[in-house]
């Protein structure tokens, strides 16, 4: 008989009601990748799981592998990121967009995605501790998770020919382009906006925190458009993200 119980840690991405009092929880785990599992009785107020299987929670889990869906048999909270996020609407909506992106950028179920998992945990931790503008945290997360998925935008060289001295951002071409490769409709962002994108992609928070609001706004617009273009069905929660 094969062993069907396994243990992992993960971040709860999404929950859906199932039947009378159960939920299906989608979890991005450290070792197993994205998992969908049934949490039985979790909607009853007497549930032993309590808030441990709510979105944003970083949990230590024991699961029973099932034929179609796994079943959560134990859950212990490691970090309740949702507690900090839920009382701050802009942070909450930014976090939701991160969860949805993590789900969409991990294409298959149970395909290990350690780097995406680590990025998400790091992103949620930074969002919850309130040390940076949530919009910067979200855009940094978008850029880095796209990079991990193989869609890093080219920012310092032309995405098409590799030439230096780039001035335009062409989503379809894959980032900044030179004057020769510029396609109609490409945006021409302010140089500090491009510098902000570079800083966010590298994790240079000193530079990012020092940026001006108008460049943050322009950066968010470009990053959002770039993300939506790379994800077939787009990120639904993005339109509900509230910018402070």
């Amino acid at each position, binding site marked *: 008989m094969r062993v069907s119980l396994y243990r992992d840690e993960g971040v709860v991405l*999404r929950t859906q*009601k*199932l*039947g*009378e*009092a159960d939920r299906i929880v989608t979890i991005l785990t450290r070792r197993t990748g994205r998992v969908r599992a049934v949490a039985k009785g*979790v*909607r*009853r*107020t*007497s*549930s032993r*799981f*309590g*808030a*441990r*299987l*709510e*979105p*944003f929670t970083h949990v230590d889990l024991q699961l029973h592998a099932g034929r179609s869906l796994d079943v959560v048999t134990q859950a212990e909270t490691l970090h309740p990121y*949702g507690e900090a996020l*839920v*009382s*701050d*609407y802009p942070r*909450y*909506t930014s976090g*939701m*967009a991160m*969860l*949805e992106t993590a789900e969409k950028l991990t294409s298959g179920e149970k395909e290990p995605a350690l780097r995406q998992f680590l990025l998400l945990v790091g992103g949620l931790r930074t969002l919850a501790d309130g040390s940076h503008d949530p919009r910067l945290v979200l855009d940094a997360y978008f850029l880095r998770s796209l990079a991990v998925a193989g869609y890093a935008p080219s920012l310092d060289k032309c995405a098409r020919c590799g030439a230096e001295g780039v001035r335009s951002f062409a989503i379809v071409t894959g980032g900044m382009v030179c004057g020769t490769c510029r396609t109609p409709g490409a945006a021409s962002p302010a140089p500090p906006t491009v510098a902000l994108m570079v800083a966010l992609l590298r994790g240079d928070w000193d530079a990012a925190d020092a940026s001006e609001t108008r460049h943050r706004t322009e950066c968010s617009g470009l990053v959002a458009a770039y993300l939506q273009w790379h994800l077939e069905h787009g990120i*639904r*929660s993005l*339109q*509900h*993200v509230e910018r402070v």
Partner: protein
Amino acid sequence: MYEGVVQRLIDELGLLPGVGPKSAQRIAFHVLAADPVDVKRLAHVLLEVKEKVRFCRICGNVAAEEECRICRDPRRDPHVICVVEESKDVVAIEKTREFRGRYHVLGGAISPIEGVGPDDLRIRELMTRLADGEVTELILATDPNLEGEATATYLARLLKPMGLKVTRLASGLPVGGDLEYADEVTLGRAFEGRRLLDV
């Protein structure tokens, strides 16, 4: 797959919330075996409910008339409104007999991942109700789970400039669950010990 109309019945039943393919099949065969009179009564009430029942134009609760029973009741306190997600939450709170004010049914909770934002809920209608200044306290009784909390956060911030007393059902309601599953005693206690939201 079953023949024609049987399969169609299973498919229709399978669209209902909480009914999976196995349950749909079980219900369909129950209907097949049932007395025709019973089935007619069920079919009739299904049609009747769609024809006669609507949503209260004031609070959004299910109603047999233009306004629901609670909004029409002059003995209910017009100064307090309890905001809930669904009509079934009104039923759960009414059972506690703790609350004598009126309700406002949002029609769900903010859920960005499902594409549900503030504009998709009956929040504008709530703001309209508050405009004349008769309401002095608002109790936010959205579900004690993440989406319910986030909806309460959003509302509290929106209501802040209005200078109302805004309260949230006390903890003691275990987090993570649905309000409708809270027992009457727990829910009653949560009402008594509601806390002032300081936003």
